[in-house]
C-alpha cells in the first residue's frame, strides 16, 4: 500500500531534490532517556527553506507524546523529545515519508570537539574585540594629547591599557601560544611562532616602557593583532566544521539496523556493525542492504543503481550475490551475510574515500606556500634589525623595541585574513545559488580543472524514468486522449503497490488515485491482479507474451494487458537534466575536455553520449574501473573534476583532483565530494567560474600583503614606527584584503 501524504514530498521551494522514502528501522538503539522523557538526535537531509522547517517540525510534533521537535536548518540536525510509547522508528518514518533523507546521529566526538573549538574561537574573538575597542579609546587620547598631556596622565592611561591587555592576551592569545608551542616542540615553525613572538615581545616592551614612563606603548597593537587574527581563525574553523559534519554521513549510514534471523526463524533487529559473516539476514522490500549477502530464499527485483549505476532494477534469485547499498524493490529476500560490515563493499568504498582524503590533504594550498615564505622572512628581518641597532650602539631595550615593531608591522593579519575571507565570501555566494561547499581549499583545486568526468545516471540524466508515450498495436497513442487516460489509470491502480522505478514513473504521470487490492508482485516479471474475473498484468514483454519484434523498441518499457485485450506498451525515457547542453557547451568553450564513465549498459551510455556530443565515453564500468580511469588521467597530468552521484562513484569522487555531487546523490558520494549542487548541470560552470575568481582574489590578497610589507618593513627597521603608525598600518592592510575579497559578491 502506498501512503499518500497530503502535501507534495520534499522541499516546497524545490531547492533540494526529494529523497526516495524507504522503510526506517533500528532507531530504537539511538534513543536516550532525559529525565522522564525520551530523546533522539537525527540528521535530516534536503531541508533547505522555511517550508521544509515547518513541514518537518509540525509533522513530528503531531505524533503522539512529542514535546519538542526542533530542526537546525544550517546543520540539518534535529532533536526530538517525547514521552510515552512512541517508537523512534515512527519519527524517522514520518520524516522519510515527507520526502527528506533521515539518519540517526551517531555519537561523534569529533564534531563536538570542532563545535567547541569554533565556539571558543568566537568567544576569544569577542573578548579581543572588546579589549581592542577600549584600549583604542585610551590610545587615541594619548596620541591626540601629544605635547599637552601630562606624563602622569599618559602613564596612567598606558597602565590601564596594560591591565586590560594582559588578561586578553592570556585568554584570546592562548590559541596562538598553544599552537606555536606544539609546533616548536615538534621541531618546526608555523605561522603561530612569529605571531606569539610578536605578541609577547610587544607586550613585554610596552610594560617596560610604561614602567619607565616612556612615550610609546603597543598594548593596542597587541590586542588588535589578536582580534584580526582570530577573525581569520574563526572563519577557517567554521568552514572546516561544516565540512566535517557533511563527512559524517558515511558513519550515519553504517549505524543502520539489519534484520537478523535466529535459528528458530525469528526476526531480530540488530545494528549493522554487529552482523557476522554467516548470519542469516532478512531484507524486506524498500530496505537497503547493509552487508554483502548471498541469497538463499526469495526472488525479487533489486535496485542496484547506487552500486553499479545501472538505471533499472535487476532480478535476484537464490544463489546470487547482493552487494551492500542495493535496495530491495519487490519481495522479501533471505540471504547469508558473506562478510562483516567492515569488509562489505560499503566499507571498502569508505576506505577508498579515506585514501583519497589523505592524498587531497597533501595538496599545498596557496596560503601554506605564502606562510612558508613569510615565517623565515619575518624572523630574519626582526632578528637582523635588533642585531643591527645593537651594533650601531642602541641600547638593548631600544633594539628590542624595534624588533617588536618589525614583528608587529610585518602584520600577519592581512596574510591570515587573505584566504579565509575570500573563501567565506565565495562559499556564501555559491550557497545562495544552491551550491553547498564542503571544504574551503576546494576553490584552489576547482580553479585548476582541465578535464571533467561525468557519471551518467542521476548526474547527466535525471535518474528517474519518465513516461514518454504509449503504443497500442503498433499505433502511437496521445497521452492526453481519453482512451489513453483510462488505460493509464487502470495500469496505475496496479503500479501503486510497487517500488519499481518504472511503476513509480507511471504513477507520477497518472496522478493520485486508489491502489487496487490483491495485487501480486512477481519479481522479474511484473504485477498481477484479477479484476472482474479478468487477469490484469503489468510488466515485461516476455511475461505478458507480446510480440518480440514490438518489444525490441528502444528504451525501457512496460506492457499492460487486461484479460485477452491487446497489450498496451508504456515507453519511458530517462530525460537529460535541464540545462545540460548549455552547460556542456560553456565548459567546452573554456577548453575543458568532457568524458562520460558510467556503470550503465553500453547502449544507453552511447546513445546519451551521442545526444550530448561527448566523444569520450565508457560504459559498464565497475567502481574499480572508474577509479582506474581517474588514475590514468592523473598520470597524464590532467586535473580532473569528477561529477557523480552513486555509491559506485564514491571512490572516483574522492580520488579526483576535485569533485562535485548533485543534491540527489547518496550520502557517501556527497561526503566524498568538494561541493554538492542542487538543480541541473548549469551549476558547474558557475562553480568553476567562482572558483577561478576566488583563486585570483586570494592571489591578489597575498600580493597586497607582500606589497604592504615591502613598504612597511623599511619603516619598521629604521625605527620610525610609532604605535599610531602600527595601528593604522595594521587596520588598513586588513581592511584592504577584506574589501578585495568582498568583490567576490559581485555578480558579473
Amino acid at each position, binding site marked *: 500500500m502506498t501512503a499518500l501524504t497530503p502535501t507534495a514530498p520534499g522541499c516546497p521551494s524545490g531547492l533540494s531534490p526529494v529523497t526516495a522514502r524507504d522503510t526506517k528501522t533500528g532507531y530504537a538503539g539511538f534513543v536516550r532517556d532525559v529525565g522522564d522523557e525520551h530523546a533522539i538526535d537525527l540528521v535530516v537531509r534536503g531541508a533547505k527553506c522555511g517550508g521544509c522547517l515547518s513541514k518537518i517540525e509540525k509533522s513530528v510534533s503531531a505524533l503522539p507524546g512529542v514535546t519538542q521537535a526542533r530542526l537546525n536548518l544550517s546543520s540539518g540536525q534535529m532533536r526530538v523529545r517525547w514521552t510515552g510509547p512512541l517508537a523512534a522508528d515512527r519519527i524517522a518514518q514520518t520524516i522519510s515519508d515527507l520526502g527528506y533523507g533521515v539518519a540517526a546521529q551517531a555519537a561523534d566526538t569529533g564534531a563536538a570537539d570542532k563545535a567547541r573549538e569554533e565556539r571558543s574561537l568566537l568567544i576569544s574573538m569577542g573578548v579581543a574585540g*572588546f579589549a581592542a575597542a577600549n584600549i583604542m579609546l585610551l590610545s587615541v587620547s594619548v596620541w591626540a594629547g601629544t605635547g599637552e598631556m601630562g606624563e602622569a*596622565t599618559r602613564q596612567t592611561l598606558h597602565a590601564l591599557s596594560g591591565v586590560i591587555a594582559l588578561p586578553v592576551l592570556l585568554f584570546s592569545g592562548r590559541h596562538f601560544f598553544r599552537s606555536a608551542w606544539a609546533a616548536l616542540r615538534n621541531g618546526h615553525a608555523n605561522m603561530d611562532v612569529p605571531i606569539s613572538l610578536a605578541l609577547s615581545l610587544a607586550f613585554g616592551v610596552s610594560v617596560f616602557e610604561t614602567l619607565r614612563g616612556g612615550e610609546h606603548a603597543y598594548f593596542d597593537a597587541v590586542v588588535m593583532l589578536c582580534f584580526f587574527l582570530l577573525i581569520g581563525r574563526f572563519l577557517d574553523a567554521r568552514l572546516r566544521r561544516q565540512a566535517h559534519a557533511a563527512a559524517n554521513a558515511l558513519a550515519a549510514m553504517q549505524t543502520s539496523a539489519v534484520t537478523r534471523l535466529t535459528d528458530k526463524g525469528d526476526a531480530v533487529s540488530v545494528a549493522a556493525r554487529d552482523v557476522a559473516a554467516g548470519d542469516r539476514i532478512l531484507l524486506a522490500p524498500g530496505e537497503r542492504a547493509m552487508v554483502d549477502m548471498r541469497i538463499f530464499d526469495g526472488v525479487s527485483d533489486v535496485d542496484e543503481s547506487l552500486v553499479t549505476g545501472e538505471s533499472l532494477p535487476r532480478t535476484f534469485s537464490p544463489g546470487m550475490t547482493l552487494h551492500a547499498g542495493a535496495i530491495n524493490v519487490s519481495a522479501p529476500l533471505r540471504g547469508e551475510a558473506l562478510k562483516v560490515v567492515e569488509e562489505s563493499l560499503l566499507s571498502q568504498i569508505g576506505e577508498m574515500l579515506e585514501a583519497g582524503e589523505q592524498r587531497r590533504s597533501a595538496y599545498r594550498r596557496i596560503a601554506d606556500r605564502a606562510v612558508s615564505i613569510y615565517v623565515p622572512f619575518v624572523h630574519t628581518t626582526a632578528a637582523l634589525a635588533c642585531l643591527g641597532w645593537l651594533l650601531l650602539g642602541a641600547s638593548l631595550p631600544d633594539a628590542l623595541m624595534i624588533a617588536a615593531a618589525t614583528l608587529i608591522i610585518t602584520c600577519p593579519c592581512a596574510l591570515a585574513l587573505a584566504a579565509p575571507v575570500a573563501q567565506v565570501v565565495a562559499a556564501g555566494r555559491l550557497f545562495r545559488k544552491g551550491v553547498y561547499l564542503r571544504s574551503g581549499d576546494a576553490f584552489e583545486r576547482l580553479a585548476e580543472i582541465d578535464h571533467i568526468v561525468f557519471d551518467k545516471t542521476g548526474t547527466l540524466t535525471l535518474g528517474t524514468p519518465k513516461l514518454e508515450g504509449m503504443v497500442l498495436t503498433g499505433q502511437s497513442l496521445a497521452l492526453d486522449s481519453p482512451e489513453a487516460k483510462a488505460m493509464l489509470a487502470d495500469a496505475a491502480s496496479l503500479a501503486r503497490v510497487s517500488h519499481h522505478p518504472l511503476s513509480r514513473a507511471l504513477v507520477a504521470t497518472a496522478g493520485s488515485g486508489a491502489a487496487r487490492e490483491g495485487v501480486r508482485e512477481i519479481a522479474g516479471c511484473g504485477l498481477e491482479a484479477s479484476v472482474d474475473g479478468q487477469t490484469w498484468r503489468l510488466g515485461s514483454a516476455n511475461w505478458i507474451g507480446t510480440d518480440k519484434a514490438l518489444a525490441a523498441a528502444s528504451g525501457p518499457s512496460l506492457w499492460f494487458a487486461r484479460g485477452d485485450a491487446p497489450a498496451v506498451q508504456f515507453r519511458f525515457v530517462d530525460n537529460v537534466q535541464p540545462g545540460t547542453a548549455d552547460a556542456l557547451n560553456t565548459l567546452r568553450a573554456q577548453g575543458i575536455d568532457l568524458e562520460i564513465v558510467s556503470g550503465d549498459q553500453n547502449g544507453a551510455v552511447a546513445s546519451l553520449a551521442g545526444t550530448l556530443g561527448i566523444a569520450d565515453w565508457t560504459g559498464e564500468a565497475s567502481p574499480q574501473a572508474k577509479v582506474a580511469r581517474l588514475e590514468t588521467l592523473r598520470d597524464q597530468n590532467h586535473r580532473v573534476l569528477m561529477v557523480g552521484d552513486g555509491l559506485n562513484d564514491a571512490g572516483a569522487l574522492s580520488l579526483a583532483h576535485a569533485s562535485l555531487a548533485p543534491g540527489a546523490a547518496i550520502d557517501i558520494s556527497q561526503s566524498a565530494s568538494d561541493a554538492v549542487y542542487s538543480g541541473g548541470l548549469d551549476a558547474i560552470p558557475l562553480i568553476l567560474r567562482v572558483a577561478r575568481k576566488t583563486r585570483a582574489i586570494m592571489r591578489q590578497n597575498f600580493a597586497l600583503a607582500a606589497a604592504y610589507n615591502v613598504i612597511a618593513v623599511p619603516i619598521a627597521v629604521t625605527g620610525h614606527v610609532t604605535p599610531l603608525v602600527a595601528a593604522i598600518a595594521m587596520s588598513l592592510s586588513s581592511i584592504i584584503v577584506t574589501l578585495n575579497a568582498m568583490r567576490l559578491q559581485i555578480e558579473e
Partner: protein
Amino acid sequence: MTIIVYLIPVALGLGLLGLGAFIWSIRSGQFDDMQGPAYRILDDDDDTPA
C-alpha cells in the same frame, strides 16, 4: 580632568556588559542556526499540521 576617573570605568563597564551579552548569546546557542529563525518567525502556529 578628574571626570575621567569616572568616565573610564563607566566606558569599561558598558563594554563589559556588551561582552557579557555576546558571550551569553553564544553559550545559549543563538549562533548555532543562522538560517532557521528567520523563517520560524514567519510561521503561524494556528494551522493544522501538514
